[in-house]
């Protein structure tokens, strides 16, 4: 097969729990670093929703594991969700593809997203980016690969929300401009 036959790879964001926690945190952090994380996570979440809103149904731009999403949902609404809170979770489930296949749900919360990234990278036309605000995630990914091969390297990018935001601005400039415009209201209305 020649290069002309190779389909361009589609970017897909694989979301970790820390991303959800920061993006949907109601309180605006006071600490400068935490504020940057919060704002970038919010930007990335908005861009995911914005992009998924115009993609054909069935196309995916962001995925996570059922463990990650369920953990986020429980923190978001607690054990007794209100009707509105449950609606929000259902809306998000339709903007972010939640993988609940038997082979994924038996894994730990950390390993589940690493396996999703590896699978997407290895057998599809997606180029995954793992989005996490936990610096130790990279070490965990390295350990994950070195279990089988001490020389193995992580084959995909691991970005923080701040890095993901910068990447998405370059990759989707028009969409990023729309998100930025909508988010300006966040600061002018509060």
């Amino acid at each position, binding site marked *: 097969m020649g290069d002309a036959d190779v389909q361009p790879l589609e970017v897909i964001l694989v979301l970790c729990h820390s991303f959800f926690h920061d993006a949907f945190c*109601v309180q605006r952090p006071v600490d400068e670093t935490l504020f940057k994380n919060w704002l970038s996570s*919010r930007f990335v979440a908005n861009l995911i929703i*914005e992009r998924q809103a115009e993609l054909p149904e069935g196309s995916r731009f962001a995925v996570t594991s059922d463990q990650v999403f369920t953990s986020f949902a429980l923190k978001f609404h607690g054990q007794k969700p209100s009707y509105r809170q449950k*609606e*929000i979770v*259902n809306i998000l489930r339709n903007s972010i593809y939640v993988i609940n296949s038997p082979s994924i749900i038996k894994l730990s919360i950390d390993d589940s997203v690493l396996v999703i990234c590896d699978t997407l990278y290895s057998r599809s036309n997606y180029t995954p980016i793992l989005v996490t605000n936990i610096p130790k995630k990279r070490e965990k990914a390295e350990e994950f690969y070195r279990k089988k091969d001490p020389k193995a390297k992580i084959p995909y990018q691991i970005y923080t929300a701040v890095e993901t935001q910068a990447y998405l601005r370059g990759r989707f400039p028009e969409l990023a401009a729309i998100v930025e415009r909508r*988010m300006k209201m966040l600061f002018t209305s509060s």
Partner: protein
Amino acid sequence: MDKLDKKLLGKTMSVDIRIRKVKVLQGRAKEVAGKSKLSPDDLVIVTTSVGSLPEYKIEKIDGDPVSFLLKRSKS
């Protein structure tokens, strides 16, 4: 299609709720959106209730979607 809790919904009906852009809506959902003053790039929450013939409810999102959803969850 996601099924909301029947107790919360109060009746046996499938409900799908998702965010779409006005410009990608088609058919009757587009007709419903057309009744409101919406721009093609506006984001809307489309609630589809499926009894026999689906019914569409369109709600405009003001500002960024995450902030809108968080505010909405408290209403």
